[in-house]
């Protein structure tokens, strides 16, 4: 079954709405340039900023300029409002869900107020806007979706495509009538400095797939699509495009690098094509992830060659226009693909000059060309690789019915609630392997491996993680070092362990699991979303065994903040892993 896209909204470096984004793409105008809004000392780094101040965005949303709202939320709410208006929806009596992909969440306001929060009680509520889940809730409220179900996906740079994938699955399984799915991510000092510590930021305009490419430029923005079952459209609504296939797979190779043969990307693209019922030659354009780092572009090229052989359709990375908008990149590029379908053009790969043997040759001019089916790639840290096929026409119906009489049961389980228990890690891995791990990573590794052991399984078919706050310990260390000692000499080890999907992907690497890999971060609802996903995977026959982990931690500072707010104090460490599977036949 294909899902109809009935509306979309977008805000990024090349425009504050779809019309202006389209114009920039067709005129070959980049949005990357000198830093204007982000208050960083790294002025040498070009960025793809949204050309609006926070105050301007607050005014657009009718909010008081004095109110503290993260830039992530502001951009997200603007894009959602555009999408809702575009879709011409009748929301009455409908089950609506907002699925948002983000990793930064409220980090921009947290890093701005953190030092003051240590002294000033009045600023403590900023903390309640820090986590990804609360960002999504606030966006729903600002966009007039107070009654909608909300969910946040956090798989680093593939978050927004995974949000579209989850939304599509929910529609197919009749869990919602209307899905608004996409992602949003504002630039923050935190991740600008994190990427900088990994030495993968180009000081010049990025050059995806070029022989002399030297890294990525960070960007920011938000984009959302409205998805509905084709049969549920009203007479006033038009299908603009269809989500025809998708794949979510894991490279299971390295925390920050992609494998040489692009295994995860290859599997994700193959799965997306298979679901769409299309052959590689049916694809007229590939919107590549193409970040501009030496590693990503070579690995992605290898994967594209494996899928398409000698006959590679036009490929471009549009990150030379927008910058790498990280968690939002998947939906920003999905909307660019929809514009490409609607206007029959292929956007250029800006910045490319010289052929690299290790890379595909991208299309460098903006060309008018009929497009029927487009493949859009989106990859993240830890090898969270996803791809989606977007088409002018729906596929012939092949609805994924749930299998009947199938019972899901627990095959194994393990819990760690105490720092003392972390000594058990030695039973599973050497101190050398554990040397970079923070306490939550250690706990998650122990419970995952113990639960799998109890279930008698080495490699699960899928791994799903639920975490409300993610990697607090390493994130706080990195942020405090940055705030106290400035934006130089920061630790890459701390940053690479700061994204929420670190846990899921590290466990995938350890268990060699290339299957479905997902991370939910929706406050106290995270576990329920993860379990719901696991049951859906098993009931639709997509997985026989799923490792579900629920992992959260606190730090002394974090606990102190909650104590001062007179709120329940989060525990220092909690990790619970469950292996779910089909109940064996009697």
């Amino acid at each position, binding site marked *: 079954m294909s899902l109809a896209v009935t509306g979309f909204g977008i805000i990024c470096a090349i425009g504050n709405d779809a019309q202006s984004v389209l114009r920039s793409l067709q005129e070959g105008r980049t949005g990357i340039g000198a830093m204007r809004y982000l208050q960083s000392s790294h002025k040498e780094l070009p960025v793809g900023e949204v050309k609006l101040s926070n105050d301007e965005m607050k005014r657009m949303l009718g909010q008081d300029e004095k109110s503290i709202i993260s830039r992530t939320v502001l951009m997200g709410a603007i894009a959602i409002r555009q999408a809702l208006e575009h879709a011409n929806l009748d929301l009455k009596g409908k089950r609506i869900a907002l699925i948002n992909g983000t990793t930064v969440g409220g980090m921009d306001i947290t890093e701005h107020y953190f030092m003051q929060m240590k002294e000033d009680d009045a600023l403590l509520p900023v903390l309640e806007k820090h986590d990804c889940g609360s960002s999504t809730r606030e966006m729903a409220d600002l966009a007039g979706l107070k009654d909608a179900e909300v969910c946040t996906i956090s798989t680093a740079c593939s978050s927004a495509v995974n949000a579209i994938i989850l939304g599509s699955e929910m529609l197919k399984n009749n869990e919602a009538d209307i899905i608004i799915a996409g992602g949003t991510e504002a630039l923050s000092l935190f991740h600008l400095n994190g990427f900088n*510590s990994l030495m993968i930021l180009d000081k010049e305009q990025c050059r995806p797939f070029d022989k002399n490419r030297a890294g990525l430029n960070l960007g920011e923005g938000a984009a959302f699509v409205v998805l509905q079952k084709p049969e549920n459209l009203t007479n006033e609504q038009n299908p603009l495009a269809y989500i025809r296939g998708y794949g979510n797979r894991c490279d299971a190779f390295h925390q920050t690098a992609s494998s040489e043969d692009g295994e995860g990307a290859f599997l994700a693209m193959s799965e997306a094509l298979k679901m769409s019922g299309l052959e590689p030659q049916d694809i007229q354009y590939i919107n590549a992830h193409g970040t501009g780092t030496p590693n990503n572009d070579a690995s992605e090229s290898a994967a594209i060659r494996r899928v398409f052989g000698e006959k590679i359709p036009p490929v471009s990375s549009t990150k030379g226009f927008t910058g790498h908008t990280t968690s939002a990149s998947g939906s920003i590029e999905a909307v660019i693909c929809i514009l490409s379908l609607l206007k029959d053009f292929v956007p250029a790969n800006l910045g490319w000059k010289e052929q690299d043997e290790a890379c595909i040759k991208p299309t460098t001019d903006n060309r008018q060309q009929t497009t029927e089916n487009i493949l859009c790639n989106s990859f993240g840290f830890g090898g969270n690789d996803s791809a989606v096929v977007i088409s002018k026409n729906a596929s012939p119906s092949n609805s994924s019915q749930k299998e009947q009489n199938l019972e899901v049961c627990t095959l194994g389980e393990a819990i760690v609630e105490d720092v003392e228990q972390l000594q058990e890690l030695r039973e599973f891995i050497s101190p050398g392997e554990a*040397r970079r791990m923070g306490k939550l990573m250690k706990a998650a590794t122990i419970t995952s491996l113990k639960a799998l052991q109890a279930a008698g399984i080495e490699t699960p078919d899928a791994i799903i993680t639920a975490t409300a706050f993610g990697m607090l310990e390493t994130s706080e260390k990195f942020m405090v070092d940055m705030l106290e000692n400035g934006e130089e*000499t*920061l630790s*890459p*080890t701390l940053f690479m362990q700061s994204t929420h999907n670190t846990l899921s992907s590290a466990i995938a690497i350890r268990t060699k699991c290339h299957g479905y890999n997902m991370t939910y971060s929706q406050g106290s609802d995270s576990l329920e979303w993860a379990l719901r996903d696991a049951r859906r995977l098993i009931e639709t026959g997509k997985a026989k065994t799923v490792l579900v982990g629920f992992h959260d931690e606190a730090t002394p500072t974090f606990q102190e903040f909650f104590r001062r707010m007179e709120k329940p104090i989060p525990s220092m460490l909690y990790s619970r892993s469950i292996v779910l599977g089909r109940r064996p036949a009697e």
Partner: protein
Amino acid sequence: MEQLINDLKLQIKEALNLEELSLEDFDENAPLFGEEGIGLDSIDILEIIVLLEKNYGIRLANPKEGKAIFQSVKTIAEYVQANRKK
């Protein structure tokens, strides 16, 4: 030079959290990367680059430049000796 080598060993051990590696076993001529040596990887190179900037004021803009420098603690020490700003 010997003092610098010992300082570097200590700083590397601490920055990379190499708990199980005793300073006596930390041979300054042993290759830092690859299976036969200490077994460090690309993230460790980045941490060592941070360490050199923090402690010796040496800035390396590109990890690839460092390939010759990061062969062993000895080669790092020689580079630091010649290029240190503090």
